[in-house]
């Protein structure tokens, strides 16, 4: 494996992170079980939850890696994955599956199995959140969920989906305690009917503050011991400094850059050990939060760029040491990765609206370039004020072809947040976390609730509400499409099906939201998120300043092309009938090559800057957005939509038969807002134009993937053109764009399996062409040429 890192220390730390097999860690679950056995029903739920964290941080195994400058692991060592039986109590079968599966496996020991069987399962079986959720759902929800009409995020992991604000870097836990005490003192027990529950919540927060400070103290003692024993004077001095840092943090506001990073990391561990929130936790605008400390330390002569970078690289290793909490079943399919989606946005703007890029921003770019780690998901925010140098450096890293950094559009994100009711100042503090979802950092709970299978809803429409895959009547009976005289009749039927399915989904969401509010408070996340302390309310119960729920639409490319195929061929040109199309779909297009050819090759498709198809995309988007947006959440907020798939487009494709656009049964549907795989034939500017016709500002985030060959981006010209593509897409209010750059291996695969690489465009000479359209000989020439350009 390639060794990366700026020096021997980082290389060694990174190597451990990369080469350690992710494994299950039951220490937390066992401590939690003990706390519940002793205290459940004797203290309030928030207090019980806080006691779990305090007990865990008081007793957990501490890890100190060789040469580490930033300390702390969520489990007992790197690549440990603590379990959360209060959310999902894994069966022994689950544990065998996670150990044995070919990809994204977690090793499980015999002792783990024994502990699970004897300690965890007997206590938690039947009382986990997953049990409560599944018991609370309607029959319709259960059937639709099982058939893949939508997924459910909170079925195995907790809500979270947020990033830290400025206070995460400027306040210590003793200071939070003062604030919380004041909030308790201010409670009005005479008039406020909720004063008692608020007091429970605030007391739980106090306990969690203690928990973090206990962890700090324990590390300080360990570091002092190690310093004592250490014979290497350089390392000894480091250990002493690290111990001295813990005199200040986590109790008090950091005084140095180093302390600020360590403080963040303790908070990260606390938030992600209390529950296993989706997308872990993120430091938000890391560059802007660190810059004041960086500037002061440099001024004071105690920090240089090399050390500043080294500390960042240590932090990057820490992120990478935390595999995602173990998922099984559908939740694994929708997000089949070790990545826990901690997401760092660099660049953007400051609170006052001015350019946010600073010296630390460039160090972060160097760090991501050097470390080449999938965690943290390291991305950049580009505003119209972003210096060209910063954009170009980001393009240079992106061009290496492994997908980072992705590019987010600051100015568009501000519009999204304003549209969703945030103040201008809070909007400027926003960004994208997880994949692309937008929130006001430090102020908002913006919870993703599940993916929504739009092409499958359309498929139900074509079969009068019947699901050919599960053999059930899942949708409404909106009529046999053979009887529809006009495209509009078909559209109305689809709109009714979509509305019905959204009702099923949201009704389930509302129950789940209430269950979390009631049974699973998150006092630690509430400490750091505005305005939970002020309101005396938990993050999971609407305590944040803003409370948003997202539903993520999947497959806009596929559904658009299906509608276009029907409109163009059946209603506009009478090339074939609905009956003929349905027969072809039933037969997976075998023996129906003529229809297949028409819908595949001779129909306008989304992604080509062709208004015929793109107007249909806009209609579908509007229908979906308007149906979801503005629905009330149980915590007083509103629903909004995202357009992103993670890896769910593959799962959603598996549960859909052949579709009207010529997509064969069980193949993936389109991802993000990208065109269907073989649909775009006019190059990247046409794709960008089509995608920009969606009203991004009215969403909470969209995702666009673009693919290039290395030669198309070669040289300074290549970089400049890439930067221009991004700037132009962002001027059109595109939310996000990321790039794949193909290597020789991929091209060889594409040659062997052309049908799987139908959208691969290569630069031939003075022109571009589809790789599949080239003669074998020319393909060989390009494969060889591409190899040379690396």
């Amino acid at each position, binding site marked *: 494996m390639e060794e990366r890192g700026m020096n021997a220390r980082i290389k060694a730390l990174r190597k451990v992170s990369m080469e350690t097999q992710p494994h299950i860690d039951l220490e937390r679950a066992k401590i939690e079980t003990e706390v519940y056995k002793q205290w459940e029903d004797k203290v309030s739920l928030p207090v019980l939850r806080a006691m779990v964290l305090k007990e865990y941080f008081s007793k957990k195994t501490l890890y100190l890696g060789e040469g580490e400058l930033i300390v702390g692991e969520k489990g007992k060592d790197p690549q440990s994955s603590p379990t959360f039986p209060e959310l999902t109590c894994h069966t022994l079968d689950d544990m065998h599956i996670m150990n044995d599966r070919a990809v994204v496996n977690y090793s499980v020991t015999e002792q783990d199995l024994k502990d699970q069987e004897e300690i965890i399962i007997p206590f938690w079986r039947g009382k986990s959140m997953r049990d409560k959720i599944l018991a609370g759902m309607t029959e319709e929800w259960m059937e639709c969920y099982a058939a893949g009409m939508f997924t459910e995020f909170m079925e195995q992991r907790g809500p979270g989906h947020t990033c830290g604000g400025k206070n995460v870097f400027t306040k210590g836990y003793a200071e939070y305690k003062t604030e919380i005490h004041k909030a308790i003192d201010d409670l009005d027990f005479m008039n406020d009917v909720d004063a008692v529950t608020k007091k429970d919540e605030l007391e739980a927060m106090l306990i969690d503050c203690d928990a973090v400070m206990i962890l700090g103290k324990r590390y300080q003692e360990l570091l002092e011991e190690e310093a004592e024993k250490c014979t290497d004077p350089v390392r000894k001095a480091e250990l002493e400094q690290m111990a001295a840092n813990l005199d200040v943090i986590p109790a008090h506001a950091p005084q140095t850059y180093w302390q600020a990073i360590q403080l963040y990391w303790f908070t990260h561990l606390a938030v992600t050990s209390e529950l296993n929130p989706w997308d872990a936790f993120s430091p938000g605008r890391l560059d802007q939060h660190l810059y004041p400390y960086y500037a002061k330390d440099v001024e004071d002569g105690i920090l240089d760029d090399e050390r500043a970078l080294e500390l960042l690289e240590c932090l990057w290793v820490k992120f990478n040491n935390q595999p995602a909490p173990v998922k099984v079943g559908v939740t694994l399919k929708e997000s089949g990765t070790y990545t826990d989606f901690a997401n760092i946005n660099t660049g953007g703007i400051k609170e006052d609206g001015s350019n946010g890029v600073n010296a630390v921003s460039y160090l972060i770019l160097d760090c991501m370039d050097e470390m080449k780690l999938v965690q943290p998901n390291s991305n950049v925010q580009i505003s119209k004020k972003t210096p060209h140098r910063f954009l170009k450096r980001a393009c240079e890293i992106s061009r290496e072809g492994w997908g980072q950094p992705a590019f987010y559009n600051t100015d568009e994100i501000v519009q999204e947040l304003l549209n969703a009711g945030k103040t201008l100042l809070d909007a400027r503090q926003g960004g994208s976390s997880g994949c692309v979802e937008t929130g006001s950092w430090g102020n908002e709970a913006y919870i993703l609730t599940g993916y929504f299978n739009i092409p499958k809803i359309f498929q139900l429409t074509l079969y009068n509400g019947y699901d050919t895959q599960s053999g059930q009547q899942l949708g409404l009976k909106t009529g046999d499409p053979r009887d529809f005289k006009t495209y509009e009749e078909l559209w109305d039927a689809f709109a009714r099906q979509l509305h019905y399915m959204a009702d099923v989904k949201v009704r389930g969401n509302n129950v789940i939201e209430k269950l979390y509010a009631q049974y699973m408070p998150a006092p630690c996340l509430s400490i750091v998120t505005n305005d939970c302390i002020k309101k005396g309310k938990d993050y999971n119960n609407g305590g944040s300043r803003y409370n948003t729920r997202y539903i993520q639409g999947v497959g806009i490319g596929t559904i658009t092309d299906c509608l276009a195929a029907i409109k163009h061929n059946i209603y506009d040109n009478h090339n074939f009938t609905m009956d003929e199309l349905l027969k072809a779909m039933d037969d997976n297009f075998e023996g129906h090559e003529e229809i297949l050819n028409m819908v595949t090759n001779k129909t306008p498709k989304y992604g080509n800057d062709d208004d015929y198809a793109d107007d249909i995309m806009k209609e579908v988007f509007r229908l979906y957005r308007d149906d979801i947006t503005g629905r009330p959440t149980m915590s007083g907020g509103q629903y909004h939509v995202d357009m992103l798939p993670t890896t769910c487009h593959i799962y959603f494709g598996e549960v859909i038969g052949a579709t009207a656009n010529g997509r064969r049964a069980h193949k993936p549907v389109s991802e993000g807002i990208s065109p269907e795989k073989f649909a775009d034939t006019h190059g*990247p*500017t046409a794709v960008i134009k089509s995608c920009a016709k969606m009203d991004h500002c009215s969403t909470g985030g969209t995702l666009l993937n673009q693919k290039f060959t290395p030669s198309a981006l070669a040289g300074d010209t290549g970089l400049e053109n890439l930067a221009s*593509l991004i*700037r*132009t897409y962002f*001027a059109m209010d595109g939310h996000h764009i990321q790039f794949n750059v193909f290597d020789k291996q991929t091209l060889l695969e594409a040659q062997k399996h052309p049908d799987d690489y139908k959208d691969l465009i290569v630069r031939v000479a*003075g*022109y*571009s062409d589809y790789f599949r359209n080239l003669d074998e000989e020319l393909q060989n020439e390009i494969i060889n040429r591409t190899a040379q350009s690396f």
Partner: protein
Amino acid sequence: MHSVTNIQKYSIHDGDGIRTTVFFKGCHLRCRWCHNPETQSFEKELQVDIPKCTGCGRCAKACPEGAVTISPDGKSVTDREKCRVCGKCEAACLGNYRTVVGRDYTVDELVKICLQDLMFYEESGGGVTLSGGEVMAMDSGYIKDLVRKLHREGVSVAIDTCGQAPYSNYEAIIPYVDTWLYDIKVMDDDEHREYMGMGNALILENLRRLAAAGARIYIRIPVVKEVNGDTGSMEAIIGFLKENDIRPLQVNLLPYHNTGSHKYGKLGMEYPGAELTAPDDEEMQSFVRLWNDAGYGNVKIGG
């Protein structure tokens, strides 16, 4: 109306920035290495991808002229004498292996398509490149109308030309063209006739006059080892430019490639340049130095 073979968006090697390149159909030269043989004839043509043909016979049934038959080895055979390029077989072919090259566009249709990427041009300093084939061999009024309209919309226009067209065509559009991508191949008239099918007198004369009119010129030289890939040939071109006080803003040395050779078979033609080769990297670098030493600083290998 003029026939266009391709409208290439995100074109990044035919002028500055992000561009749309329009390839017009028809050219008077017959360069032996031509990599766009489908742009040589002014007429529409049928292109057939024989290796991919499955021999299903739908094209033969669809052809009103009876020009298509299926050979015993299961491939379609087209009698190009009988074929009237009506496109019925294109519609019938299930694999899109048969295509008619060349589609007529009105000026307004082309302007509309070219304006689709306006924001990209403005951000990147790009624009529209009219190429071919030979754009200057098209109807002068049509081209003038096109470039005027593009110019009026604020689009930067580049003309990619081999120089083989009446000077009046050039003169008519000078005010609306930002950059001329002007091809020079060899200086010797006989040699030019041998490899390009015509002499170069008009080409050189047009270049002289364009330069004298103050046009912004990029000289583009396809470099083929057997034809002009030698010091003498380069020096001859440099000598001509010096002698006539032609000062291009950029010189592009374009190493020969055979990536167009596969297209000949599809058109029922034979590739005449099979024996040609490209100079190696070192030779290309030596030509760059040669140009630099002669006082031309902005010399690039490739477009």
